[in-house]
């Protein structure tokens, strides 16, 4: 198991490398960026820049220093939020985004998995068609269309939920719409995935054996079929996390939620290079970590892999 983790970590290193290198060069090449001599940069920022980017060093030296500082978690000062470093901003937005994201993943697996299993059990009957059509809708309609529409219905017409904002971070009513809007495409995808997988599994020989043993349909499905059918869903969790990170950017913007995604967009609109770069690198690391966790999880759950 340890060698498995080590191997995967090793595989992730090039990816991280690629991200950081791209980040470095993009900052240097950007027109109007901190290295563009024509741009008028306020003196206090210029001082910070010189300190952080070591502009007096040769290129290789700069790259090396950048690498070190990034690996140490220092992304430099923010260009638009004058008194804050990028790290501080990421740190403040992280708990919010994390809460949003993890809840969405949880919902995706729970609701998506159940709906998909239900659709598989009632294959080709009305429940199946309804669920699959809903899933198709959830996948095709982008979340920046779905979220406003949901808000229109629930927030404006029916007035049961607030239209935006986060409150003090503890009130449930502010969290419902964003989490639902974020989770919907993933619920849709997981339900389709689960349905397909469950249908395959229900056709397999060992399910026939379970029935031949006279086990109830409930036991056959939950104990025998579920384990096999959910493995592909576990595999999907990696890409699902990436999808949720992507989605959170939009959702936080629409609902004015103070998470990392919102800082990212504000940074993009304000051309805050360091902020934007820092967030991308941070997200990259998150995705790599999530993928690693998922791979380990899969290795634990599949007995054929666990015995190596």
């Amino acid at each position: 198991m340890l060698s498995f983790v080590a191997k995967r970590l090793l595989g992730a290193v090039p990816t991280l490398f690629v991200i950081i290198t791209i980040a470095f060069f993009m900052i240097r090449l950007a027109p109007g960026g901190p290295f563009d001599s024509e741009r008028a940069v306020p003196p206090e920022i210029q001082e910070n820049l010189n300190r952080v980017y070591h502009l007096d060093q040769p290129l290789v030296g700069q790259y090396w220093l950048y690498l070190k500082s990034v690996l140490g978690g220092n992304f430099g000062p923010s260009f638009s939020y004058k008194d804050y470093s990028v790290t501080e901003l990421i740190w403040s937005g992280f708990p919010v985004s994390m809460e949003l994201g993890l809840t969405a993943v949880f919902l995706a697996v729970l609701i998506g998995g159940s709906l998909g299993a239900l659709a598989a059990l009632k294959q080709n009957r009305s429940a199946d068609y309804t669920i699959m059509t809903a899933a198709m809708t959830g996948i095709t309609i982008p979340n920046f269309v779905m979220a406003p529409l949901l808000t229109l219905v629930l927030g404006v017409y029916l007035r049961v939920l607030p239209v935006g904002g986060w409150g003090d971070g503890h009130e449930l009513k502010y969290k419902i719409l964003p989490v639902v809007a974020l989770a919907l495409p993933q619920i849709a995808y997981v339900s389709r995935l689960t349905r397909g997988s469950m249908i395959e599994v229900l056709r397999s020989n060992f399910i026939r054996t379970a029935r031949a043993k006279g086990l109830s349909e409930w036991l056959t499905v939950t104990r025998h079929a579920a384990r096999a059918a959910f493995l592909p869903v576990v595999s999907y969790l990696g890409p699902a996390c990436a999808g949720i990170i992507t989605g959170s950017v939009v959702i936080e913007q629409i609902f004015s939620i103070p998470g990392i995604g919102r800082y990212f967009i504000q940074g993009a609109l304000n051309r805050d290079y360091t902020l934007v770069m820092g967030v991308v690198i941070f997200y990259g690391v998150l995705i790599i970590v999530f993928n690693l966790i998922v791979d380990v999880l899969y290795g634990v759950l599949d007995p054929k892999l666990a015995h190596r």
Partner: protein
Amino acid sequence: MTVSQDQPGWKTGNQTPLLVVDQLETRFATPDGTVSAVNGVSFSINKGETIGIVGESGSGKSQVLMSIMGLLPHNGTSTGSVKLEDREILGLSRDELNKIRGTRMAMIFQDPMTALNPYLTIGRQLTEVLTYHQNMSPTMAREQAREVLEQVHIPEPGKRLDMYPHELSGGMRQRVMIAMGMLCRPDLLIADEPTTALDVTIQAEILDLLAEQQAATGTSIILVTHDLGVVAGLCDRVLVMYGGRIVEQGPVREIFYDPQHPYTRALLLSMPRLDDDLAGDLPTIAGQPPNLARMPPGCAFAPRCGFASDLCRQAVPPLREIAPGRSKACTLDRLVA
């Protein structure tokens, strides 16, 4: 080898048969039309008997088993009657069937690797039968599972309980399947080509194991196979199937030494023997098995039969008794060697 031949009743049929199948028909609805897999199969099996069902692929032999066990897919329907000790089980609800499956009748399948759940331990797959059907406590169930693994001669049974199917060899997996089937001491064990996926040496072991289990518990066995050698080794009676129908049935020795149906004879002749003359071609049966979606009006074997007459082609010959305990579905009175 088999004890059943000495058991009173099987020849005279005095006791109530364990299982009576009467005019079983199974059809599948497919996009290409209705496929008649089983076309009016009738037979019975007594307590302690072993009968073999032989036939080519597509003869319907496996579907007979599936129909009896109620394991047909959604597009399959069965008509007719299947009575287990005078109780009609064809058409029972799934919940009712589940009370009988695994307890009074059990089934083992062809490929033990895919027939066992790769994600559960052997122990789990064994104990769940006991905890579910007999409400046994997990500790007792585990102890019984260990015992039954011993009975099927699996070394280190305690350890095996915590292993997964992929950690065992093919022969051992099939033993586990047999153990699983015998756990509740069923009256009827149904085996669908249990040795086809195994090496020849292991085959013999498995067959011996089945015989041994039967001797110990008096279970009746229905064994489906395409291998006549397997039948000869284990069965008391044999049913020969073709085109979804039984074409001949009777005691094993009599069928083998004096086949009375052209198909049975052709089948026996096509089996190469160790003492055969090596020169000449291997005899085969010319032609193809019938298309089960479009069955000919008469005998299904007529197109390939050297003795076929117009009478054969017009109507399906009924299964008629030609000697005590023997019957065949053929218009010929006697097939001379």
